[in-house]
């Protein structure tokens, strides 16, 4: 399934998206002030070729919709979860190389100047320009290499704030280094293939190397290269790499607010500082500005759909399709269609709501096209009795980012709980299927639209 893309990199992916009609070039000069607004108004991803005062083009909006994400991945829209699940089970270890496109240009020492990069200012109340598409690479002597997605706020020519507020592997690595009063070497890759980006965003089980997963997604080893100033390996075909250290200053530097993945403006935080020791890049690099929230959310969408299919399978339920919806940030809200046996509508709800992030669920029969919101609404309308078919579970694990759990009322360190619900929109037990017989236009197969329009 990935044979034709084994050696694909970020710009190969862009070329395919352009061929698919999901990426358009903008020739007119634009300010980094306006890139996010323009991407938000466009019906495709945009490659802004002329950025005011910079000689580096900016691309954004790549994974804004399911269709664009599918184009980037090269997978059918309805198979994102299934393909992700299949590839994750076949990890392939990365290979270390010596020569790398991402090191065609190397800038070190006092010449390092982050203002050479067209780091955009994205949202009205952001604390500054942000690198939103950074994939951070780090090592730990015990835990091994790690890759993850972290935002970075521009502060000075050589320093950025990095968000390590919530629990993550990098936070764990940094905490250990901070405990030794030592800096943590880190490299930030900007403009990596969606397989590497998605693998880094994936909440991999402990001990898994995200680049092994990226290899599984590619169907071939990811080529990595050691940094020029840090002993950290990064994707060799990244567009731009920032090498440096997380300083042992702890959570002391102001960072944020930033427009977060849930679509709401986040809070001002105290976070560590990233000091840049080198900027390396391709000749003629492309800067990737990931647009919040949907691009960030779609990086997790296939993994969510894969996890849903997995828990339904563990519950012995035959799954027809699973869809993580955009309105639910590709994780919090899920629609699933199943080949139902008696009671399995509710079993499916219980299984899906056991996933930490899933907060609301609709379960339908497999005759419903769950990618059509009208069909899902039809099923909810006519197959659901609200007093019997809505399951509410309270006191479940919640997330601070959800204002409805009133996180500001929590004591320091206290975790929020949340109510979750599911709608069983399968045909109720005892009602024969013929009661739901759908109308069919007469002689449908004899009529071809193109013969008349």
């Amino acid at each position, binding site marked *: 399934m990935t044979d034709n893309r084994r050696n694909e990199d970020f710009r190969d992916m862009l070329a395919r998206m352009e061929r698919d009609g999901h990426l358009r070039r903008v020739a007119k000069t634009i*300010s*980094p*002030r306006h890139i996010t607004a323009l991407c938000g108004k466009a019906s495709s991803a945009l490659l802004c070729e002329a950025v*005011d*005062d*910079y000689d580096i083009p900016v691309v954004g909006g790549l994974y804004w919709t399911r269709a664009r994400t599918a184009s980037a991945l090269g997978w059918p829209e309805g198979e994102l979860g299934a393909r992700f699940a299949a590839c994750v089970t076949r990890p392939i270890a990365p290979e270390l190389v010596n020569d790398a496109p991402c090191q065609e240009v190397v800038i070190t020492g006092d010449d390092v*100047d*982050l*203002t050479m990069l067209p*780091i955009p*200012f994205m949202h*009205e*109340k*952001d*604390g*500054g*320009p942000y690198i939103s598409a950074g994939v951070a690479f780090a090592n730990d002597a015990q835990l091994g290499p790690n890759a993850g997605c972290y935002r970075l706020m*521009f*502060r*000075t*020519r050589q*320093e950025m704030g990095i968000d390590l507020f919530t629990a993550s592997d990098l936070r764990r690595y940094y905490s250990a280094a901070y405990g030794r009063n030592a800096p943590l070497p880190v490299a930030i890759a900007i403009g990596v293939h969606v397989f590497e980006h998605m693998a880094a965003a994936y909440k991999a089980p402990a001990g898994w190397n995200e680049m092994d997963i990226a290899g599984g997604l590619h169907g071939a080893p990811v080529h990595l290269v050691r940094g020029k100033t840090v002993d950290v390996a990064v994707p060799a075909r990244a567009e731009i790499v920032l090498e440096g250290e997380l300083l042992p200053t702890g959570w002391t530097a*102001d960072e*944020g*607010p930033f427009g977060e993945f849930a679509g709401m403006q986040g*809070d*001002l935080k105290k976070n560590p500082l990233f000091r840049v020791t080198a900027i390396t890049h391709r000749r003629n690099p492309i800067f990737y500005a990931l647009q919040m929230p949907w691009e960030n959310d779609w990086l997790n969408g296939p993994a969510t759909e894969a996890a849903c299919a997995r828990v339904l399978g563990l519950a012995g339920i035959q799954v027809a399709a699973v869809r993580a919806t955009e309105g639910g940030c590709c994780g919090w809200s899920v629609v699933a269609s199943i080949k139902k046996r008696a009671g399995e509508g509710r079993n499916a709800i219980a299984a899906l709501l056991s996933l930490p992030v899933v907060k609301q669920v609709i379960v339908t029969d497999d005759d419903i096209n769950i990618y059509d919101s009208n069909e899902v609404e039809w099923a909810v309308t006519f197959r659901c009795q609200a007093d019997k078919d809505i399951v509410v579970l309270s006191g479940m694990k919640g997330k601070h980012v959800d204002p409805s759990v009133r996180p500001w009322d929590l004591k320091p360190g206290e975790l929020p709980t949340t109510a979750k619900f599911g709608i069983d929109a399968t045909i109720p037990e005892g009602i024969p299927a013929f009661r739901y017989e759908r109308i069919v236009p007469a002689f449908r197969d004899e009529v071809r639209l193109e013969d008349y329009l």
Partner: protein
Amino acid sequence: MSKDADAALVERIENCLRQPVYFRDILDALRDRPYRAVLRAWSEIRMQHALERDDFGRYSLPKR
């Protein structure tokens, strides 16, 4: 002052920061200057001052 920062621009940003402002307000006030020049001046500001932030994330110069 670093070699790339524009002293006049730094001073204009300092004037903006005499009251709490969002970063967006600074960009808005300096529309007549290139984005990159503003970022270079902002870098200088952050190296020279321990800026204060209010609960909304607005910046201001430290009170003396």
